[in-house]
Each structure stands twice: as C-alpha cells, then as structure tokens.
C-alpha cells in the first residue's frame, strides 16, 4: 500500500495525460477548423449543404478531443505501464482499484452533458434548416416561407415562378429502375431528364418512385430523400451558388443501382426561366400525353409488382387474367 502512495508522488500520470490531451486537442481542433473545415464535403452550394458542413465541423471539433483522449490513454498505457519495462511497478489491486466514485460520477455527467448538448444542437439545426435537406414525408412540419402555397398551387396547376419573385420552386423527382426524371409543375408539368435549378431560390423536391425504393441524393446540394412508391417525400433546400452537381441513387434498387446517376446544374434565375419556358414549349406535345401532374403515380404494370400482382385497375377482378398486361389509365 505504501508503494502505491510513493508512486503517486513520483509521477502524476493522470495530470500528465491531461496536459498532453489538452495540448493535442487544442492544436488538432484549430488545425481542423481552419484548414480542413471549410473544405468538408459537400461544400456550400445550398443552404442545407452549408448548414450541414457547419454541423459536421462542430461534431468533429467536439469528437476529436474524445478520440485523442482515449487513444492517447491507450498509447500511454501501452508504453508506460508495460510489464516488459524493467521499472514498471507492480499492479495494485484492492478497494482503490475497484472504482472511484468521483471519477465515475464526473465521467457520467460530462458524457451526458456533451451528448445532450449535441442532440439539442442537432435538433436546432434540423429545424432551422427546414429539415436540413432530408426527406420529410408528405406533410413536412418544417418548411421555408411560402412552400405550402407553392406546393398547393403546383398541384392545382396554377403555380408560377419568375426571377426575383422569391417564390419557392416545386420540382418533382420521379425515380424508377434505373433513372431519375424531373417534372416542373409550375411550367406546365413538363418532364426533363436533367435537373436544372435556378440560383438563390428555395426548392421543394417532391420525391416519389414508380417501383421500388430509391433514394434521391443530390450530393453537392446536400439533399437526400428516399423515393417510395405511392409516397411523396418532400425535401427543401435553398440554392446559393452556381455550378454542376451529381445525383445518385443511394438506396439499393436492384441490378443497375450503381449506374443510377445523372447530373444537374444550378444556373442563374434568368437562364433558368429561359430554359424552362423553352423546354415547356418544345415539349408541349409530349407533356400532353403524360399522366396529369400528381404527387404520386400508380406504379406501372411493369414496375415492382408488375406481372405478378393483379393490376390495380383490373375490374372486375379476374384471376385468370394474364396479370400485368393492362396498363394503368
């Protein structure tokens, strides 16, 4: 027992570990925040991307000291308290080694406070960023100003959008095996295979699927929303930089999941309006033949369950019908 006391006086290991830890943490945190932080993907192309970058950096700055602390402890123990080293004192058991109320209680308090603060911060960010670019289901409770009006008008076919109007632009994302199609309800509901968005505009993505579950992931826009059949999954963001971005499917959707990607561009508001009106006019004949704009579409008979389940529109139900031959109206 006396051995233990004299050791404690010789080197205060705990204090030493703490000093090294503080020094390392401060240095690494500063290096990360100023050198790496501004470059953390996916950049700042939209409000949600910027907010999420901030979130990531704050989590990292808090997480890094934890990472450093525990690893430093392990490394310190591995080198200092090694049985192979000649001067390593014997381990000391007994009541003092069984536990230490003060240490235990402070550990619990500190970890709990950090964790609850992190959760609180995450919730604030989620609400402040209007869902942070994540899918919010058909009835989002956090949305940008004017989103509900724009969405309602889009469905009624009365939606408008013009440069400098500060209107929310609803865009529909239709996922199917294995491509994304985009519909612009405010411009007559035309379909496009490339996603063009105006700069400095709040966008409401309405994501749905025609067959299996996909996930619409506009990487640089920091938008991700699962595409579910017969569900409208809404995600908001606000563009703030011009540039190209990539869209990938991030939910396994079968054979060509890996090849399910395309590209999009954020252009100036004037350029967008020009593109949208020209495309609307050029596609008018085709758009007429499309299903009327809706939040969801009954899956095609060749979709996920096509040919296997009786078609939803077969009436009267006939079990001998060759399933799937009938297309939905």
């Amino acid at each position, binding site marked *: 027992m006396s051995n233990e006391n004299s050791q404690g006086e010789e080197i205060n*290991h705990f204090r030493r570990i703490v000093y090294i830890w503080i020094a390392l943490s401060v240095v690494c945190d500063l290096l990360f925040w100023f050198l790496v932080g501004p470059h953390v*993907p996916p950049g700042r192309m939209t409000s949600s991307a910027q*907010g999420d970058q901030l*979130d990531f950096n704050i*989590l990292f700055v808090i997480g890094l000291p934890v*990472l450093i602390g*525990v*690893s430093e402890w*392990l490394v310190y*123990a*591995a080198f200092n*308290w090694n*049985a*192979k080293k000649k001067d390593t*004192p014997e*381990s000391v*058991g007994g009541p003092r*080694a*069984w*536990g*230490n109320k003060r240490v235990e209680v402070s*550990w619990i308090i500190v970890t*709990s406070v950090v*964790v*609850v603060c992190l*959760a609180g911060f*995450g*919730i604030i960010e*989620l609400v402040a960023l209007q869902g*942070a670019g*994540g*899918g919010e*289901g*058909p009835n989002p409770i956090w949305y940008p100003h004017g989103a509900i009006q724009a969405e309602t008008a889009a469905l009624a076919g009365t939606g408008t959008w013009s440069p400098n109007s500060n209107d929310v632009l609803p865009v529909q994302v239709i996922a199917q095996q294995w491509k994304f199609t985009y519909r612009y309800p405010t411009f007559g509901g035309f379909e496009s295979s490339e996603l063009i968005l105006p700069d400095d505009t709040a966008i409401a993505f309405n994501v749905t699927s025609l*067959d*299996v*579950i996909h996930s619409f992931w506009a*990487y640089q826009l920091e938008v*991700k*929303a699962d595409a579910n*059949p*017969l*569900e*409208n*999954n809404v995600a908001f963001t606000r563009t703030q930089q011009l540039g190209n971005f990539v869209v*990938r499917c*991030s*939910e396994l959707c*079968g*054979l060509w*999941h*890996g*090849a399910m990607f395309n590209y999009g561009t954020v252009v100036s508001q004037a350029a967008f309006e020009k593109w949208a009106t020209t495309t609307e006019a050029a596609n008018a004949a085709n758009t007429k033949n499309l299903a009327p704009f809706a939040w969801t579409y009954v899956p095609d008979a060749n979709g*996920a*369950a096509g040919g*296997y*389940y009786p078609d939803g529109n077969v009436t009267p139900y006939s079990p*001998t019908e*060759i*399933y799937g031959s009938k297309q939905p109206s």
Partner: protein
Amino acid sequence: MTISAERPTEVDDKGVDPPEFIAQPKLRRHGLLGQHLGTAIVCGFLGYILGHWLGNYVASGYPYIANSGQNSIAVLLALMFMVLGWLIGIGALNYPFAKMLGREAKGEVEYQGWTRYFRYNLDHKVVGIQYVVGVLVFFFTGGLLAMAIRTELLNPTVHVFSADTYIKIVSEHGTIMMMMASSVVVGPLGNYFVPLMIGARRMAYPRIEAFSFWIFSAGYLVIFSALFFGGFPTGWTGYAPLQTQAGPGMISYLFGFAIISIGMMAAGFNLAVTIINYRAPGMTWSRVPIFVWSIIATAALLTLASPVLLAAGLFGILDKTVQTAFYVTEHGGSSYLWENLFWFFGHPEVYIMALPGFGIVGEILPVFARKPLFAYRIAAAGMIGVALLSFFVWQHHLFQSGINPDMRPLFMLTTELISIPTGFIFLVGMGTLYKAKIRYEVPMLFCMAVYFNFLIGGMSGVFLSDVPVNVTVHGGFFVLSHFHYTIMGGLIFAFFAGLYFWLPKMTGKKMNKKLGLWHFWTMFVFFNLTFFPMFVIGLLGQPRRVFTYAKNLQTLNDFSSISAFLLGASFLIFVANIMWSQFISPEKSPPNPWDSLGLEWQTATPIPIYNFERIPVIMTDPYHYSEPGAPALADFGEKVMAPNTSPPSSSTSTDQ
C-alpha cells in the same frame, strides 16, 4: 446411465467423497453408426427433393407462377423440407417426437471421441466447439465474398463481374456476415463458457442448445442456397418492394433469416435461463463475471428482437409465394412496414453484435493488467443500458425515408443517448489499464485494438445520428465504414481475443504466440487501412453497393482494396496457427496459462464432462487481482480438486 445434474443446495463439507450422483457417466463409442452429420446431409438432400417436387406439384398450375418461369413455392417447400430433413437426420427431433407419441424418450447417448463433434450432442462444451467451426465457416465464406467485392471495386470502368453478379455477391456477403456476427460470440464462447463461469454443470436446456446450433448450420445452407437460385439483389436489408420483385433467391434470404431467428431465440432464452437459474451458490448478481453480464444483456435482445425478424420474414415469404401484399403499397400494404419491422429487429441486432465483444474485453483486460475491473457495476449497468436503449433507436436508419419525419428529433436524442452507456465501457477499460502492469499477450493486444477500433466506430456513429450530417453520410461508404469498425473492429477483434484467450482451455493446447502476433498486427493494420479510407470515400459521395463509382475516387478505392486483400491474407496466418498449434505440433497447455482468477480456469484441463467435480461455492466477487490477502474466489471442496490446479487460496497473488 441417468445422471442427475441438479445442483446440491448445500455443498458437503470437506473430506467427504463425491456423492454418487456425480459419478462419471457411461460413455459410448459408436464410430460411424447412429445419427451424425452424414445422415443429416442425406436426409436434408432427400427433404429438398421431396419439397421441390411437392411445390411443383401443388403450385405450377397457377398463372402467376407459370408466367414467372420460377416457382417460388417449390423453392420454399424444398428449403423447408431440407431443414426438416437436416434436423431429423441429425437426431434433433428424436426426443420431441418420442414424447409426442407418448413414448418414454431414450436418454441421449453421450458419445465420446471425435465423432461427437459431428453429432447432436448435449454437452455445452461440444456445442461450443461446433459453433467455433460453424461461425468460422460462415466468416470465411463471407470474407471470400468481401474479397470479390473489393476486386470489382479496383476499377470504376473495368468490370470483373457483371452488375448482376456483383449485387448478388454484395447481398450474400452482407447477409452471411450478419447471420454469423449475431452468433459469433454468443454461440461458441457463450455456450462454452457461461456454465463454466457461473459454476454450473450444463446449460438449462441442453437439447435447445444443441438445436440452436443445428438450426444455425441449416441457416447457413439455406442462405448459401440463394446462389443456386439466382441470388437476391436486395443487400442484407432486403427492402421491399425490391424484395417482392426479386427472383426465388429471395426465398433463401427470407427463409434463412426466419430460421436463423429461431436459432437466435433458442440460444437467447437458453442462456438467459441458465444465467438466472444455474449460478453456483454464492454467485450473487454482483459476483457474476462481466462476460456473463454481457451475455445476459445479449440474450435479452436475442429473445425479444428476433421474433420481429421472424414475423417480417414470414410476411415476405407469404408475399412472394401466395401473393399476400404486406409490403406492396398499391395493394394496401406498405413498403415502410418492412423497413420498420426489419430495423426494429435490426438495431437491437447491432447491439447483439457489440455487447458480447464488450464482455470479452472486460473479462480479459483484468487478467493481463493484473488489476481488478475498474467500476464493475458501471460496466454491467452500461451493458444493460445499451440493451434497453437499443429498442428505442431503430428509426435512425430511416431518417431520410419520409417515414415519421416529426420523430427525427426523438430518435436523434435516443441514438445519441446510447453513447452514454457505451462510454461506460470505455471508462471501465481506461480505469483498468491505469497504472497497471500490462502483459502483452495476443488476447490483450486484440482487446486494446477493440478499444481503438470501437472508438472510431462509435465516434462516427455520432455523426450518423445527427440528422443534418446524416443527409450526407446515410447510405454511403461512411456508414459502411462505421459499421465495419464497430462489428468487425469491435466484435470480430473481440472474438479473436476470446479465441486466443480461451482456446488453450477448450482444446488443452496452446496457441503459437509468434504466429498469433503476426496475425494480430497484420489484421489490425490492414483492417484500419481498409476501412479508414472508406470514411473519406463516403464523404466524397460514393453510395453503398455500387459496382461503379466516380473516377476521382479510384485511388482511395484501390488503396482500400489492396489493404482488404492483405487483411484477408492475415486470416491465413490464423488458419496456419490453428493448424500448427492444434494439430501439427500441439503443445500442452497448463490448466491456467494466463494466471486468470476466473472460475472457468480453476477446473482441470481437459475440462471434465460435468465441468466441476462438485459445484463450487462462490466466496467473493471476481477480479481480486494483485490484492494480497484477498479471499479465495470459490470453495471447490478439498479432496476433489483437480491436479495441477493451484488452490484458490494461492490466487491472491499470482504475479510474482
């Protein structure tokens, strides 16, 4: 031949001969006669043929089957009858059938010799060894598939496999590994060492224990059979309606998970009942070894979470065979239903894979640190806390799915709360190492690695739990790296720590230390080199389960792939070590090579068939390391002490 394994309520005083009831049982050698793996294979094969014929007979006339070109009902019945045949062939159903027919069941014969490892054996030590081999077969199969995945990802444009083959490899890899990981510690080490650690002679339900292994091995056959039915494209998560759309390989997935979940339930409640009821006299809850705490927490999860998987699997099977529409939105079902059910099981499942690892580490650290486990109660509380909270976090897998988005703050909070009890485990480890005199044997190195790997895995989990950050990292390589860090870096490293630690007790032969060190260092280094770059790959935008990716990510992917091949090679060293030190040049291990105070080490090596000559009476709590004058752990009864075992009283100071 009848042996009562009841434990005496009071243990006789010293000097009395062992009473009649613990006399050694009569053992029989039967060679190749009777029921064994061979008959199981034959019956399984016959069952398969019968089921397939039956399925074609009853179902091939229906138009939706005739049109599909594939008869899912035939596949399902074939697999069902195969499993049934397998169980009949191995003899798992002899006892229940005899009882059902009103006959007195013949007592199972206790086979001896090497053939017992190929039979339906009720000895938990035999089942434990069977499980070791079983999970290693699972693990190496899944590992080879992982090598195939990394080969394909060497180049974004040059493809080794077709997209079709690739997605099937990915799915098979994920599913096999998940099935393996849910049993990797509970099966081999839990079954083998829980009775030894709590001073019991056997498990509470030996037949159910043996059943859990043989259904687990049938699960392997079923899930492996998917490859012969064209595989399945859904990954291990099996999301509907892709599941509904998939070919008959999907039946293997659904039915495989269903029967694996039966095995998990069986193993879980058997372990829970054993731990609750079969503890030796004196082993109060505050004296239960920490590994046993981790197993009881895991057992609770196994018992409560697996039924949900079973139900989910059965719904999927019905959807695919008889056209119910549980998961088909346009016919009144919901694709969200599968997601909810699957993750309601799936999240407790990931703690099923984490907790036993914590238990092993907590058990091994004190032995090599020569110090008591720091804050034992906190460790146990942490495990129970993790187990409880794990039922309240499942929707964090569905943050972007559009399901219940208003609940995201709650699930964010619960998910982050779970890092508090997980943090307890780190406190315990750090406290135990503090001012210890650490011996770096192979198991200890693996334990230190668990802390390091799980630290990274756990910290990355905090990023995933944060909804805004989750938007980027969900469904990408970041999350892939996260769960490989926790499951492989945590659980699998802990499993190898446990194997190196306990194999000398299980087989009576030492493991070669030099090969063990090579295995550890190659596995540790290449594990980190494989998976750490994947965090970056994920942040740079690569989704999971893709056969092609952005060209600028090729360098990182190649680095990861080459490291993965070397990681795979590190397991060859392990196999070489097993071959060398267990078969080619075995070296006898002393009964307690690590100077552990654990109860399991105090009995003789090889372990007598009923473990302890007498049920020990536990005198104190475990982990009195480096404590002169500490009370002995247990009273074994003087005369029946095994030779070569140091008497418990000398365990007070084991390090000279």
